[in-house]
């Protein structure tokens, strides 16, 4: 075996153990979660020369302030994302950065921040904290046994739970999976192992349990309720099996599976059907990167149709966490000129990869693929598709240069790459054959734990979750309510949509949120993401709908959005980033008050 020493471009002036983490990350490996850190995070100990500046760094989740050095520097602990170590180390206030320890706040930060705590809501509010409203959660990992989702008598607050991977029977929704009604769940809760009775395992630290608690937990387990603790719950666990059969070449979900867009549409239809005439809001803290980003995908058209079919309906979607991932690029292709989209792929990258490039129906581009060593693999014209075959006759790349998408008329180039292709910078050369506008946008699809990116500098706009670009859905970005300056979360995706509409619609606390931890009955766990911001808005909409319901009002989705928009707080310190916070931060108290005044 030949061994070769290769230099890296990892920031050299940093603790060697942190350098090691960065090197592992560059190869698609991540840190695992511990009791105090999430996957992809590391606990650090730092020496800083300005405590306030340190604490205001967006990525820093502060731990302990351990005291002062003789020259006035502070020794502090924190948890930070491995992906941001270099930026944090380069901050002027950081003197040194090494490995260290934890600390914790709770969901009450969210409740206070958005004025959703019971004592902060308007007096004489008739909504009774969401009573009479159905909150639907489509997510992975429903811990129905956690006390936050049970009544004081121990019975379940779930009206129904559809496990799309459960055993199918004649009465399965849409012919598949297993639906558990309230009685089934209550019966299971009598057993010493309720999960075994239902044949369902939510897993530890489940995403869906955490999300559900923010929106609708009652705090019976840990003492801190969610935003709408009196609402009823319907949970849908997306199928893994269905998705798995669609994934090529054996690539599997890395940890959890969150379903696909067809399953998602059926889950939404199921929840609204089950709610009947009751007010209902659905939370979707799921998403993907690739797509037209103009609200025209069929899943977005489906969402728009579902929420406009009846009043008192809403669907809330996480805006996405792709602001800082380098997965979006844009540019202009000129007539007879070209633009090189440079795609950086690490060596030994283990995942299948996809890119989509969308451009105007008025233009005609040609695609050429160049390998990292500069060799052209050929050209693909508009209307053609192609595949690259290796010497073993395996398809290692597939290209589709599709003319006139049926939903929006635009052209799209899709590139699919199999795992373990040579690392380096691959170029997708876009040449202008017939150009009127020339503008294009490109997105790299999400690749959990081994995300590839475009070569910097990155265009961080248009980084929204694809399914959050619809006309009638409500997209939610994240900010950090644990910081005194309330910064936007460094990950929170930016609008606008590709057709120029403002998204996300709102922002909510989604950074360092403590909420129910599955398989613990009473405990909480910290998570960050627009996944955690969306359910705060879902809960507020439940409060609005409950207030309206008690006043015999029926609200359309446009009215719901307008009430939210009129009640937002707009005093944010980053006005230049309007494309990331939409109408601003939600305020439950003002929103409920607005319903009272209708």
């Amino acid at each position, binding site marked *: 075996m030949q061994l070769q020493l290769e230099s890296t471009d990892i920031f050299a002036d940093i603790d060697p153990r942190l350098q090691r983490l960065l090197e592992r990350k560059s190869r698609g490996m991540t840190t695992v979660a511990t009791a105090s850190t999430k996957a992809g995070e590391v606990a650090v100990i730092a020496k800083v020369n300005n405590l306030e500046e340190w604490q205001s760094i967006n990525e820093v989740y502060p731990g302990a302030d351990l005291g002062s050095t003789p020259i006035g520097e502070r020794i502090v602990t924190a948890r930070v994302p491995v992906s941001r170590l270099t930026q944090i180390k380069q901050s002027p206030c950081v003197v040194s950065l090494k490995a260290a320890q934890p600390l914790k706040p709770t969901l009450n930060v969210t409740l206070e921040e958005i004025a959703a705590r019971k004592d902060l809501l308007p007096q004489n509010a008739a909504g009774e904290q969401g009573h009479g409203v159905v909150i639907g959660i489509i997510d992975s990992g429903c811990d129905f046994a956690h006390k936050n989702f049970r009544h004081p008598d121990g019975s379940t607050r779930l009206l129904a739970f559809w496990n799309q991977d459960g055993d199918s029977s004649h009465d399965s929704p849409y012919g598949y999976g297993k639906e558990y009604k309230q009685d089934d769940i209550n019966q299971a809760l009598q057993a010493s192992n309720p999960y075994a009775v239902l044949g369902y395992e939510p897993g530890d630290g489940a995403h869906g349990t955490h999300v559900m608690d923010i929106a609708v937990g009652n705090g019976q387990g840990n003492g801190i309720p969610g935003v709408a603790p009196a609402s009823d719950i319907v949970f849908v666990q997306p199928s893994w099996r269905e998705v798995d059969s669609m994934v090529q070449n054996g690539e599997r979900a890395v940890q959890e599976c969150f379903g*696909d867009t067809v399953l998602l549409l059926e889950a939404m239809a199921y929840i609204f059907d089950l709610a009947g005439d009751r007010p209902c809001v659905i939370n979707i803290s799921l998403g993907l990167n690739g797509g037209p980003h103009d609200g025209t995908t*069929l899943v977005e058209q489906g969402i728009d149709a579902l929420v406009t079919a009846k009043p008192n309906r809403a669907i809330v979607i996480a805006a996405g966490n792709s602001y800082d991932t380098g997965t979006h690029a844009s540019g202009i292709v000129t007539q007879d000129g070209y633009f090189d989209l440079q795609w950086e792929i690490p060596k030994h990258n283990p995942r299948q990869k996809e890119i989509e490039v969308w451009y105007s129906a008025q233009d005609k581009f040609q695609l050429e693929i160049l390998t990292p060593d500069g060799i052209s693999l050929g050209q693909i014209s508009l209307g053609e598709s192609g595949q690259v075959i290796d010497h073993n006759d395996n398809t290692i790349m597939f290209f589709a240069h599709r003319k006139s998408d*049926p939903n929006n008329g635009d052209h799209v180039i899709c590139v699919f790459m199999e795992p373990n292709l040579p690392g380096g910078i691959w170029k997708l050369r876009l040449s202008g054959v017939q150009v009127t506008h020339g503008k294009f946008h490109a997105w790299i699809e999400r690749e959990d734990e081994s995300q590839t990116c475009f070569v910097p500098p990155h265009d961080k706009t248009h980084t929204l979750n694809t399914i959050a670009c619809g006309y009638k859905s409500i997209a939610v970005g994240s900010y950090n309510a644990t910081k005194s300056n309330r910064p936007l979360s460094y990950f929170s995706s930016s609008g606008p949509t590709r057709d120029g509409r403002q998204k996300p619609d709102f922002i909510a606390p989604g950074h360092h949120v403590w909420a129910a931890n599955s398989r613990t009955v009473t405990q909480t766990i910290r998570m960050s993401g627009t996944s955690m911001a969306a359910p705060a808005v879902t809960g507020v909409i439940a409060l609005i709908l409950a207030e309206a319901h008690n006043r015999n009002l029926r609200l359309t989705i446009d009215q719901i959005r307008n009430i939210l928009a009129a009640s937002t707080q707009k005093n944010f310190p980053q006005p230049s980033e309007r494309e990331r916070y939409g109408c601003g931060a939600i305020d439950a108290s003002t929103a409920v008050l607005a319903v009272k005044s209708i």
Partner: protein
Amino acid sequence: MTRKTLDLIKSSDSRFSKTEPNLANLVQMKERSENSMAVTIKVAEPGYVPSIVDVRAHISPNLLTATITEKDLHQLEADPLVVSLGTPRRLHSAT
């Protein structure tokens, strides 16, 4: 990697003008397969259901989910009342 070990094979993409592009990849790889798959179908007339599909859910008068085999795609492509076909796209958590 050199040009000698790789070949680019091109074809006309006109067969699937109504389907989302990720499906083209799937079909390319499973052309002869009888495997069934879930799709979203948008139709031009409210309530219209292509006779060859096995309906899963009606999302709206013009939108339904259905199970089809990959060879059914060709017939749906040729159906003038089918506007577009959406294929399953895998979702990820926003955490």
